[in-house]
Every structure is written in structure tokens, then in C-alpha cells.
């Protein structure tokens, strides 16, 4: 297995302030213990409804947010990973483990090491109308990473920016313009150009097609695919649009209330969903075919608050198959078929 | 089937600082009795503006420049909505034609309770029925009452009788402001509340007795949208306009709302004009579809035909843009045009793979090329009809 990114037991809590003295009275458990890996060159899709923590997860993985707990390993040799796992099992307080984590675990990075990391991992946001500085020219927006890292000098910046813009389907005439002069799709292309100009290895795509029109979605999707091929990119593709995720991802993970409930290769998952939530989610998507009549599973109620998630399996209050154990114990994420993991007591070995 | 609503040659423009936005240029649309007509289109296609025009609600700086909206009233006669005076318009809005919006949170006034806001619809449109109910109640009580209580009751009765005769009555307005006397309204309030609770129950909301007294911000997005739907359906309107009502909601909640709309449609027998950008929703819900692009309607057809045999190149492009397993993705090139300076002729021609010379010169007319299947494209012009 050649994993580029390995995430272990990642948690990200946001404090909730309240009361007379604005003290912390609780935490929004946006990401609550997620472990997964992303293979080099693959696209991992991550789906879930708003508030499930998928965006927080993406931002924490590339360290735009500081994790509350857990480790993130990026491009670490397999033998080192093995060593770390071995040490973790044996003695979590081993000084060697601490040294290795300091060396390799992104969760411990700070300052200049973090900054160096930025060259290798990038992000594209959902809404290009807020992710581009409205007071900067396109050339400056796209060229900023080059300037920050002082990689090339003046004239060459323009050349590199132009080359990158052309790569994403824009041209020289767009260099000296403000973002508001562009359509949504073009803006997203500018944002993509900014993300790829440093030639990163890993890009988090945070709902990059949600804010654009149907006809533009397809254009962007094609662009993402061709960029991935040309630049050997690895993607974490976050979205709530299942058909988009289906068409671009190699594997897909499903999140619910800060937890990963199911993860499987795309084909497998779209053919057969094991987790009741995944099943309901997939059945809720309207299919653009008037003759495709299908059974729809309507979930009861709303997603509970991530401040006080339900006990046991977080899905149990809405689950049509809930059993006693679901209320009491959290199901482990286990592989039930080859490459298909699910966290549900219906499938878990008890 | 008869048309219940006809939009004819509608032209709407917005006078902004950037220039005149030609949002809608000559839209023709028919909504039939009992059907669900979907309008699909991208940003700036004019689908929402069309919806607002039907209720004469286009906000400034927008202006309806031309065209008419005809609504077939209960007596079978067509009423020109855009020509109506303020009072007549108010009788149509919310009673005959209702609208629900994309952002339920923004559509509710944050300072009034759910009960207040839903109840308003009853007070505006069904005051007479409410008064009659209250009068019945008073009369039964009067039979048993004696002395002072009877006097109070008969005083209240006189007020309600007056309200029944003339809801605008100055006496009533005055009495509603005077302390103590004002209490006569409590009966009306109670009656409204009863109706609101019933309605909320119809919307399948849990615990409606509690929700009536809640403020909008205390509800989730899905619940808020149910409240908005409740307001729209309070008077059992002939037409419901739904302007992307599920776009801001999560998919599982969207599924609940779509399900609700589908079932209410069966119960209330309203016609629905459903606006969306989601082909999936169209496929699930609609009988017919109108495809809009940059202020024009390019195709109108029964839903199956739109998906099986789309005629307009834009409709085809739209369908090919939807990622489907085992199907090649063929996006439409270019971007949606700026409506201050829209392309000449057919507004789609700069992006159209089949564009001809004539496309940049003349605007294609919407015509029926097959039974019940209308399209506006020069590809389907009959020879000799080119102008």
C-alpha cells in the first residue's frame, strides 16, 4: 500500500462559549476520531450532510486548523509508519515515538515547518466569490504563492501565472482583472490556478462544484480529472453531490456527526450501501430519470447537535434498524468485505 | 386540460448601476390545472424573476416592461394580474396563488412567532369564516349565560357581527386598541391558533402546539420550510409557486420536503410551478418541464420527452453535463452570458455546437414541433419561415 496521507484518530473540537463569563461550556465535536488513509494518486471522496464535519476534516488534514487530538502523516516512508505503529502499541510514552511524531506528524508542526508544508498541500474552496480577494488582480492572486515562497523573480512570475492560467482554461486577457468581473465557473478556475501553481502533491477540494451552475460543474469536473492525470495529484474530494463524487472518486467515505460510518471503493459503495445512514442518504438523492422509480428511505427528524451527540452509535435515534446495543456502545469501523469498511452493529463481529 | 395560468410575452428588466439587466425577454408559459410544471435553468436564466412576476412581486430596480399574466379565477374568467389594483392583488396573493422561497430562514420574520406569521394568512383571507365560527361559539355560550356575562357576550357579538360585515371597520380598529375592550379579540386569536395548529399538523410537524409559540430561529431549516409551506397552503390556493424550496436544505431533509409536497399535492389539488436547477428533482416531481436560458424559454415538453428526446441543444447539453456512471461527460462550453450585454439573436448561440449564421441574427420563436413539445431553436425552423 502506498499511502500519501495517513490520518489516525483525528479529532477537532471547537469550544462553545456561554454563561455569564463566556467560559467554555462545551465543545462542538466537528471531527471526532477519524482514521483513514489516502493512496498516492487516488481521489478519495468524502460525503455527508452539512454539519457532519467533512470540511473541518479536510481543513485539519492540511493543517489549516490545529487538531485537538490525533496524528496526520504525510508522505512518510512505510517503514517509519510501521515503526510508529509498533511503538504506539508497545508504549505510547516512548521517547522515540515522541521524536518520530515530532519529525513526521503534521499535527505537531508549527511555524516555518508548517509554512513549508503549504507548498505540498493546497485547498480549493466551495464558493469562489468569497475565496478570492476582491481587491486583488487575478495575476496577483494566482502569483501570490510564488511571491510568498520567493521561488521566481518578477518577470518569471507573470510567465508562470500565465502558463498556469492557460492550464486551467483562462488566458492572457484575464491577467489584469478583478475577480468580480468573472463568472462563477471562471472564478473557480482562478482558485484552482492558485492552488496548483506551486505544483502541490495533495489538494483538498472542498465542495468545489457546489456553488456553480450545472453546465459549469461538468467543465470543472473534467478539469479536475485532467489535472490529476497530468500533475499526478492526490485529491480529497469533499461534496454532498453524490453523482459528482461517483464520477471522480476512486473510493468514497461517508461521514455522520463527526464520524466515518462507511468507506468503500466507489463502485462497491454505489452498488451496495451497508450502513443504514448511507443507504438513506443515497436513496434521498433525486435521480435525473423520470422512469427510475425507486424505494426511498425517509429518515426521521434532523441531524442532532454535534455538541451533545447521541450515545453509542450516533445514528441510532434516526435509524430504522436500531437495536439495544446501538444505544450503548459505539460500533467500531471494521472491514466486512475487501476494502469495504463500515461502522455498524448490524455487521460488526460482537 | 385547461390552463389555469398563462404568462404572455413577459419582459422584465432591472435598472442597475451596471446597466439595464435584460432578465426576461418575452416569456410565454402555460400552467395547466392540477399539473406540476417544472422550470429548470441556471443562474440568471430568469426562472425566479418569472415566478415573482406572476405575483407582481418583482422588487425594484426591476420593472415589468411588457406582457401579461392571466389567472383563471374561480368563475372561469381570466384575471390580468399585472393590471390589478392593490386591493384586488392582495385577494389573489396567498389565497389563489402562493409562493415559497429558497431560504426559509430569511422568509420568516425573526420577531414574530410561528403562530403569528401563519395566523396572519387566516386573518387576511379567511376572516369571515373565522368570525362566523366565533359568532357560533358566542351564541352557544349566550344561551347559558346570564347577567353581566351575557352583556359582555352580546357586546362581543355585536363587534364580531360588525367585523363580519366590514373587516375594515373603524370601530373594530379602535376597539382593538382600547385596553380591556381589546380582549374581545382573544376569541379570534384562539380560533386562529386552532387553525394554525391544524395546519402545522397537516405539514407533519411534531408537536404543533409547542411550535406555534416558537420563534423561527428556534426551528431547523427543514421545519422552517414546512412553516413557509404551511403559510402558502393555508388558504388552499389554486396555484403554488415553489422557488427552489429545497436548495438550501440537506439531501435527507430535501427528500422529506419533496415527499411532503408530493403528498399535499394529492390532497389539495393545487397546480404547482416548481422552479429548480436540479434535473433530479424535475424528474421526480414534474409532469411537464420548461427549460429557461438567459431570459428565454427554450423548450417546453412533458417530462419524459425532455429526458428521452431533448430537442434544444441547451437542454441536451444540460443533460449531458450530469455525471452518470458509464456515460461520457460532455460539458457545455463557455459560461452563462452577462445579461447587460446579452448575445444577439439566440442567446445560446455562442455556446451552441450547432450554431448557424442565422442564430446570431434573429431570435428563434417558441413553436410546437411535436405534439405538446415546444422548442425555440432555428434548427427546427421550417424552410421559408425564417425572418
Amino acid at each position, binding site marked *: 500500500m502506498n499511502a500519501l496521507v495517513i490520518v489516525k484518530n483525528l479529532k477537532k473540537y471547537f469550544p462553545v462559549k456561554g454563561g455569564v463569563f463566556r467560559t467554555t461550556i462545551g465543545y462542538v465535536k466537528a471531527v471526532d476520531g477519524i482514521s483513514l488513509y489516502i493512496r498516492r494518486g487516488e481521489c478519495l471522496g468524502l460525503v455527508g450532510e452539512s454539519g457532519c464535519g467533512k470540511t473541518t476534516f479536510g481543513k485539519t488534514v492540511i493543517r489549516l486548523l490545529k487538531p485537538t487530538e490525533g496524528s496526520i502523516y504525510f508522505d512518510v516512508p512505510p517503514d517509519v509508519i510501521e515503526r510508529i505503529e509498533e511503538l504506539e502499541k508497545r508504549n505510547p510514552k516512548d521517547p522515540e515515538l515522541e521524536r518520530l511524531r515530532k519529525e513526521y506528524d503534521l499535527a505537531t508542526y508549527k511555524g516555518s515547518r508548517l509554512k513549508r508544508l*503549504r507548498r505540498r498541500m493546497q*485547498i480549493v474552496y466551495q464558493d469562489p466569490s468569497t*475565496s478570492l*480577494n476582491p481587491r486583488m488582480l487575478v495575476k496577483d492572486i494566482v502569483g501570490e504563492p510564488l511571491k510568498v515562497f520567493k521561488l521566481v523573480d518578477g518577470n518569471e512570475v507573470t510567465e508562470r501565472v500565465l502558463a498556469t492560467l492557460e492550464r486551467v482554461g483562462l488566458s492572457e486577457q484575464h491577467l489584469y482583472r478583478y475577480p*468580480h468581473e468573472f463568472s462563477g465557473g471562471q472564478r473557480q478556475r482562478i482558485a484552482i490556478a492558485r492552488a496548483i501553481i506551486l505544483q502541490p502533491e495533495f489538494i483538498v477540494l472542498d465542495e468545489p462544484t457546489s456553488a456553480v451552475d450545472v453546465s459549469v460543474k461538468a467543465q470543472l469536473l473534467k478539469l479536475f480529472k485532467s489535472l490529476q492525470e497530468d500533475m499526478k495529484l492526490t485529491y480529497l474530494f469533499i461534496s454532498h453531490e453524490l453523482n459528482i463524487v461517483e464520477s471522480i472518486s476512486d473510493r468514497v467515505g461517508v461521514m455522520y456527526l463527526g464520524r466515518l460510518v462507511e468507506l468503500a471503493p466507489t463502485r462497491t459503495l454505489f452498488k451496495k450501501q451497508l450502513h443504514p445512514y448511507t443507504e438513506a442518504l443515497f436513496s434521498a438523492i433525486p435521480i435525473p430519470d423520470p422512469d427510475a422509480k425507486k424505494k426511498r428511505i425517509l429518515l426521521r427528524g434532523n441531524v442532532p447537535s454535534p455538541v451533545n451527540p447521541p450515545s453509542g452509535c450516533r445514528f441510532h435515534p434516526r435509524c430504522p434498524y436500531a437495536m439495544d446495543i446501538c444505544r450503548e456502545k459505539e460500533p467500531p469501523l471494521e472491514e466486512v468485505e475487501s476494502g469495504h469498511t463500515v461502522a455498524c452493529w448490524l455487521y460488526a463481529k460482537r | 386540460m385547461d390552463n389555469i395560468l398563462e404568462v404572455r410575452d413577459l419582459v422584465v428588466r432591472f435598472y442597475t448601476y451596471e446597466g439595464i439587466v435584460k432578465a426576461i425577454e418575452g416569456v410565454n408559459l402555460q400552467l395547466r390545472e392540477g399539473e406540476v410544471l417544472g422550470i429548470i435553468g441556471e443562474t440568471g436564466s430568469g426562472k425566479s424573476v418569472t415566478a415573482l412576476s406572476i405575483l407582481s412581486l418583482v422588487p425594484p430596480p426591476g420593472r415589468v416592461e411588457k406582457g401579461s399574466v392571466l389567472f383563471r379565477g374561480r368563475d372561469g374568467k381570466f384575471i390580468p394580474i399585472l393590471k390589478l389594483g392593490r386591493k384586488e392583488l392582495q385577494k389573489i396573493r396567498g389565497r389563489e396563488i402562493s409562493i415559497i422561497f429558497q431560504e426559509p430562514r430569511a422568509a420568516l420574520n425573526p420577531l414574530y412567532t410561528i403562530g403569528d406569521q401563519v395566523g396572519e394568512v387566516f386573518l387576511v383571507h379567511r376572516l369571515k369564516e373565522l368570525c362566523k365560527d366565533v359568532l357560533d361559539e358566542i351564541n352557544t355560550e349566550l344561551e347559558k349565560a346570564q347577567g353581566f356575562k351575557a352583556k359582555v357576550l352580546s357586546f362581543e357579538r355585536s363587534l364580531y357581527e360588525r367585523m363580519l360585515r366590514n373587516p375594515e371597520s373603524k370601530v373594530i380598529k379602535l376597539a382593538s386598541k382600547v385596553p380591556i375592550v381589546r380582549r374581545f379579540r382573544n376569541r379570534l386569536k384562539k380560533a386562529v391558533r386552532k387553525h394554525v395548529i391544524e395546519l402545522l399538523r397537516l405539514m407533519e410537524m411534531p408537536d404543533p402546539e409547542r411550535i406555534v409559540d416558537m420563534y423561527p430561529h428556534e426551528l431547523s431549516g427543514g421545519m422552517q420550510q414546512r412553516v413557509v409551506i404551511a403559510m402558502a397552503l393555508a388558504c388552499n390556493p389554486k396555484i403554488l409557486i415553489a422557488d427552489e424550496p429545497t436548495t438550501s436544505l440537506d439531501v435527507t431533509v430535501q427528500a422529506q420536503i419533496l415527499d411532503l409536497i408530493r403528498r399535499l399535492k394529492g390532497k389539495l389539488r393545487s397546480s404547482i410551478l416548481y422552479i429548480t436547477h436540479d434535473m433530479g428533482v424535475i424528474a421526480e416531481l414534474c409532469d411537464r418541464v420548461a427549460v429557461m436560458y438567459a431570459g428565454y424559454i427554450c423548450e417546453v415538453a412533458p417530462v419524459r420527452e425532455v429526458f428521452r428526446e431533448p430537442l434544444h441543444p441547451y437542454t441536451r447539453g444540460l443533460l449531458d453535463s450530469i455525471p452518470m456512471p458509464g456515460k461520457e461527460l460532455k460539458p457545455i462550453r463557455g459560461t452563462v452570458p452577462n445579461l447587460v450585454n446579452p448575445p444577439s439573436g439566440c442567446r445560446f448561440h455562442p455556446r451552441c455546437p450547432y450554431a448557424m449564421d442565422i442564430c446570431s441574427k434573429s431570435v428563434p420563436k417558441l413553436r410546437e414541433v411535436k405534439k405538446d413539445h415546444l422548442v425555440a431553436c432555428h434548427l427546427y425552423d421550417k424552410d421559408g419561415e425564417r425572418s
Partner: protein
Amino acid sequence: MLQTAKSTTLKKRLEPTLRELRFILSRLKENPLSIAGIAIISFYAVLAALAPVIAPPPPKWRDPYMIPRYGFIPEPKPPNEKLIFGTTEGQYDLFYGCIWGARTAFRIGLMVVLSVALIGLVIGSVSGYYGGLVDEVLMRLTDIILSFPGLILVMALVVALGPSLDTVMTGLILVGWPSYARLMRGEVLRVKSQDFVEAAKAVGCSDFRVIFRHIVPNAIYPLLVMASLDIGTIVLSAAALSFLGLGAPVGYADWGQLISLSRNWIIGTPGQPLKYWHTFIIPGLFIFTFVLGWNLLGDALRDVLDPMMRRR
């Protein structure tokens, strides 16, 4: 060759900025009130610049800001051919005072506004961007100053520092910056939550770069509008203090001070109730139109900049 390449790049680079400016100008031009505002301010700017030509000080006059006087009797003289605005109490030349007073007004208005805007900009940005303890301390400080009605605190400060024009300006600055800091902080918080700021951090920008390249340019417009609207208010406050006798010394070319001199002459002689009208009407009109000019401009600027922000 290289030179021309550079200049064309510069041209291209400036093009969008110029387009924006042209847009603002064309919007300003549409509004007659803003044209009036600009005209009034330009008029006063010319007046202030040409003061030594329009109202030359007498030869060997030590301080041109001190108004020359023609005698010492208290009763004001009406306008005549030589002294076209007449004299006010103590025979000070009203015309001279009004012309040179324009300089004083500009000095007070611009100095104070520039200072408070700058202080507010820096403190507001730092407070909003870093948050935490720095924010808490700075904001409590603004709370304290803002818990006084502005003019009254300035009055107390002026009394403590010793009444003079300089202390009036110092007082106005000390009391004025917190509202700017508050406004800027709010804007910074709003801008900070937008994705492009995080995107800037994601490409490795330093805090300094994030604040000054990304946040401040997007947060500064409301501050500019507030500043342009504030110039008039500040000139009014300074004039009020001078009127109360806490600002410019007697005889100084300051409009508020001139009105203060007219206080004993508001009611004329019996039968001629408006005999000394020129002593208060003329300097009053100067203050009023000056302030009106700035307020018109500020008002128009706000209207122009507002839809521009919404346009994005």
C-alpha cells in the same frame, strides 16, 4: 525595449483601478448633491490656499493667523467699502478672520480625522485579527472612552491641558479614535471569516501580509466613509469649544471664536434688532457651508461605495 514592456505592464495593471475610479466618479457625477459638496470643498480649498492673496496681512504682521484690528471700541462696525464684512467686537476685521479661518478649519478637520482614522485603523486591525487578550484589553479601553459623551470629555481634557487650539485637537483625537477602532475591528472580523483570508494562509502568507494585503483593503471602505462624514462633525466640535471660550484665543482666525465674539451683539439696538447681524451671520455661514460640503460629500461617498461592495 524593456522599458516599454514595463510601462505597458504598468498600464495594464493600473487599468482596472482606473476603471474603478472612473466608475466612482461617474456615480458621484450623477448625484447633484455630491457635486455641490465637491464644489463647496474645492471653493474652501482655494480660499485657504490663497488666503495671503485674498486677505493679505498688514506689513510686518507677526502671525498671519492673528486677525488685524482697527481700533479698540467694543461696538462692531457694519460692512463698508474698505472692510467688506465689517468688524466684530473689538474691531477685529471679519473678512480677514473668515478667510484665514478656512485654513484653521482645514487644519483641524484634516489633522484630527487623519490621526483618529490611522490610530483606529491600526488598533482595530490588530484587535480584530489577533483577538484574545489583546482584543479584550483594547476593547475595554474603547469602552471606557466611549462611556463619556464625546464633547464633554474633550471639554474636560481641554480644561486639564489648558485651553488652546492645540489642546482642542489633542482632545478630539484622544476621544475620537475608539469609534474608528470599533468600526475597523468589526470589519476586520467580517473579512477575516471569509475564505480568501484562509486561502491566503493556505498559500503560506505571513500575518503581516494577510492583514495588510488581504484584510485591510477589504475592510477600509466603511472607515473612509466614516472619516469623510466626520470631518464636518469635528470642525463643528472644535468651533463649539472655541465658542465656549475653550479653544482658540481671542483674535485668532477661527470661525467659532468669531461667533463667540458676537455673543454680546445678538440683539441689536431698539428699533434695529438686527443691527449687528454681520457679526454672527457671516462666520456662521462659513462654518455651516464648510460642514455641509463635507457632509454632502461623505453622504454621497457612502451611497457610491455601498452598492460597489454589494456588487461583488
